[in-house]
Each structure stands twice: as structure tokens, then as C-alpha cells.
């Protein structure tokens, strides 16, 4: 009885703020349904890594996905540092294999777009996922941002922009951020050439550094039937 009253109060609160508010479960469901229209896809793109110690070129990449949870990110040529947790670039993986309790966490704004915030708590205690927060565009049922906290791989954040493939819930731009651990080689191991140009002044605060990976995607080939061999 008490919970019902509380729920009522909360609801009243929401309706006061936004009259077009939907039930969060329905909204997440709609977003999920949009994504799940895609049974497989492949896409090409560019991946730019912004991590202070990593000086690597923009990589040309290929993404592959197949229902329910096959995913692969590869570099077309050369070496590539593929961020761990890149699985979650593919939003399907958030939903598959996990049962959630969805909690409505209110409203927010991402670049002028009003969004609803939903917190997904996995019901399975052994899941690596601790918490996923989704920021959903309630008009187009698109997830514009997600924040995932895992037991093993820390917290990472995704920001997505949709253009051509918004119908399928597939982003054109993804910004993947994570806490990058500091990288320190013991001096002397590398016998480096000290050109005198780099001396001191790089003493920075010890707070965890943010790492970012920007992915620009184009040329999605959707629901064309992918061979499973690709994922081996």
C-alpha cells in the first residue's frame, strides 16, 4: 500500500515535469525493439584513439555483428588497439542474455535533445554488468548515451549520434570513453634517445586519465546474412 502511494507521488512528479512522459519500461522496450530489427550487420569506419600514452594512427576498421551476441571489431590493415568493452558499442549486447530491472532515473539533456534516463540492473548476480544507464531519445527511441559499470572492466561510457541509419538504431558516430590506466615503462629498459626536448614539466595529477575512442561508421550492410566464420 505504501509503495503504491510512493509510486503515485513519483508519477505525479513526472507528469508535472513532462506531460509526454512514457512508462520507462515501454520506452526501453521500444528502443530495444528498434535495435533488434537488425539481425546482423557489417560496417566500415574509422577509429581514432585518444589516450595520452598511445600515439597511434586512425585505424580503418570493420564491425561485424550477428544475432544474438556475436560481435567483432577488426582493423582492415595494420595493428590496432581494440578497446576492451568494445562489445558494448553494439547496443544489442546490452540486452541479450541479461534480465534487468529497469529503474526510471528521470530526465536529462544531451546536446539540446531531451532524453529519458533509465537504469538497468541485471537480475543475475553473476553478471559482469553492475549497472547500465541509458539515455534515450523518447521521440525516436534512440539511445544517445550509455554508461556501463562492470565488475572486471571498469566503467565505460558511450555517446552516439545517429544519422542515416537511425531507423535501425545504428549510430554513425560513437564516442567510447573509459578510465585508462597509467602506462609507465621502467626507465633504462628501452635505452632511449634523449633529445633534450621532452624534459620535465609533464608531472601531472595522478587522477585516473580518461581514454577515448572515436568511431565514425559508414556503409552499413544490414540484415544481409553474415557467415559465422567471420567471428572465429
Amino acid at each position, binding site marked *: 500500500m505504501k509503495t503504491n502511494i510512493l509510486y503515485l507521488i513519483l508519477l505525479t512528479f513526472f507528469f508535472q515535469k513532462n506531460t509526454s512522459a512514457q512508462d520507462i519500461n515501454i520506452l526501453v522496450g521500444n528502443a530495444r525493439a528498434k535495435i533488434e530489427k537488425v539481425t546482423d550487420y557489417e560496417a566500415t569506419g574509422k577509429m581514432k584513439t*585518444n589516450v595520452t600514452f598511445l600515439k*597511434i594512427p586512425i585505424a580503418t576498421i570493420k564491425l561485424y555483428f550477428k544475432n544474438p551476441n556475436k560481435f567483432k571489431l577488426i582493423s582492415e590493415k595494420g595493428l590496432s*588497439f581494440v578497446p576492451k568493452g568494445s562489445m558494448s558499442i553494439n547496443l544489442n549486447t546490452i540486452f541479450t542474455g541479461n534480465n534487468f530491472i529497469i529503474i526510471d532515473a528521470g530526465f536529462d539533456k544531451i546536446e539540446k535533445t531531451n532524453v529519458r534516463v533509465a537504469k538497468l540492473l541485471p537480475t543475475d548476480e553473476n553478471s559482469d554488468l553492475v549497472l547500465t544507464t541509458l539515455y534515450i531519445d523518447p521521440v525516436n527511441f534512440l539511445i544517445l548515451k550509455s554508461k556501463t559499470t562492470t565488475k572486471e572492466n571498469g566503467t565505460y561510457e558511450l555517446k552516439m549520434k545517429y544519422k542515416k541509419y537511425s531507423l535501425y538504431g545504428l549510430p554513425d558516430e560513437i564516442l567510447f570513453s573509459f578510465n585508462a590506466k597509467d*602506462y609507465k615503462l621502467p*626507465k633504462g629498459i628501452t635505452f*632511449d*634517445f634523449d633529445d633534450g626536448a621532452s*624534459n620535465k614539466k609533464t608531472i601531472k595529477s595522478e587522477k585516473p586519465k580518461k581514454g577515448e575512442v572515436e568511431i565514425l561508421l559508414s556503409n552499413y550492410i544490414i540484415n544481409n546474412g553474415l557467415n559465422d566464420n567471420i567471428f572465429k
Partner: protein
Amino acid sequence: MLSLLQIELFKISRRPRTYIAFAAITAIVLIFQFAFKSDGQSYMNLMLQNVQDNFELDRSKAINGYFMCYIILNTLLVQVPILVALIAGDAISGEANMGTLRLIMTKPYSRTQILFVKFLASFIFTILLLIWMAILALFLSLYIFGADDMLIFRVKGDESQILQITKDDIMWRYFAAFGYATIALTVIAALGILLSVFAENSIGPIVATVCIVLFFTIVSNINVPIIDKNVKPWLFTSYLVGWKGFFYIGLDAEGQPVKGSIENWPAIRNSLYILIAHIGVFLSIAIYSFRKKDILS
């Protein structure tokens, strides 16, 4: 002068000692290649450390021919001065010890010519040594491990970095690096020749050259600010590793490597000037002393 040089090269080519250097290089390179072929992953793990917590990397692709060559040169170029000293330190003193110096000196050549030819012969030996290294460490590695992008693990000031150079941007850097190494090792050759002028057995100058190089290298790697600032710039050994500068790829404002660029060309150029100046000074002192020397051996 050319025929004198031919004679010098002929003598070097006929001495078993010469081949010790080539054999040593061959052995070291092959051991490296074998070790990395069988367990290169552990080395990669060591270098990547906790980068692996955030990223996945195809380590078998990372251990490729280009990377191998860099690792081998990194280690080998510390030892090659010893091999150059083996020949250069023996140049004059070896002849003195054998008793042939007095015979050479009664031939119709000036002492400057004789010394300079000795130096040239050591220089050519150094080049041949580096070509042999290039064949084994670079081309054989490429054959065994294949070609791919190359990772450079670097400590820059207080920062550690991983640089990635795309595979079509590497070969010219190796040519430049081997060119630089030639100049760097020629400093050792000039030092060896200089010391060899003053001795009548070859062990002394060879050991002295190696000791100077080792001592300076150790001092230049002490990594204490007072030494970094006041001593290091004056030691030629600080510049021996300058070849690596060609692999420190230039970065754009966003920290992306710029293909075909070098981070700090002026520093490399200055190092080259300093090394060439050392060659000039060592050689001048050697020629001056040699011209004045009474041949008593």
C-alpha cells in the same frame, strides 16, 4: 691511396678476427629471432603492461619483422662498438705488435695517408658490419616474421609512450637509422684508431676503447638530473642511440602520428654534428700524434 685501401681491406679480409664480429652478430640475431619466434608474447606482455587492461592487441601481429629489427638493434648497437673496437683498436697497434708497422712506414706514403687509409678501412668494415646486420636483423626478420605496423615503446621524459608507425612508413626510417648508426660507430672507429696510435699491442687500445664506451654509456644512463644536465651532453655515447630518433614519429595537434614525419629532426641533426665533430677531433689528434711518433716497434 686507393691501392693502399685495397691492401688494408685485403688484410682485414684475411684475418680470422674479422669474422668473429660477423659471427657474433649472426649468433645474436639468430638467438633473438629464435627466442621471439618461440616466446615473443611474454616480451610483448612486459612492454604492454596494464595497457592490456584497456585494450586488446593482436600480439602476434605486433611481433613482426620491423619490430624485431628494432628490438635487435636496440640491444645489438650497444655491443657493436666492441666489434668495431676490435678492428679499429688494432689498426696501428696490431701492425706495431706484429712488426710490420716499420715496414709499412718505409713505403712511399705519408703517415697521414697511412692513418687515413686505416681509418677508411675501419669505416668500411663498420659499414659492412651494419649491412650484415641489416640483412639479418631486418630482412631475415621480415622473412621470418612478416611485415606489419610497428610499435615503439618509449620513455620520453617522465612519460611512457607507445608509438605506432604504419608499415609503409618504416623502411626509410631504417635506412636513415642505419645511416646514423654508421656515423655513430665511426666515432668508435676513430677513437679506436686514436688509441691504437699510442700502443704497441692491440689488446690495450681495444680494451681501452671498449672501457671508454662502457664507462660513458653507464654514466649517460645514470638518470640523475645533475648528470643529465651537466655531464650527459658532453659524452658522445649519449648520441649513439640517436638513430632511434628516426622512429619517434611526429605527432599532430591531436596526438596522431603523422606519416613520414620525425618528431625532432633538429635534435637528430645536432647529434649528427656532434658525432661528426668527434670523428674529426679523434682523427685529427690521431694524425697529429702519428705524424710525430717515433716508430720504435
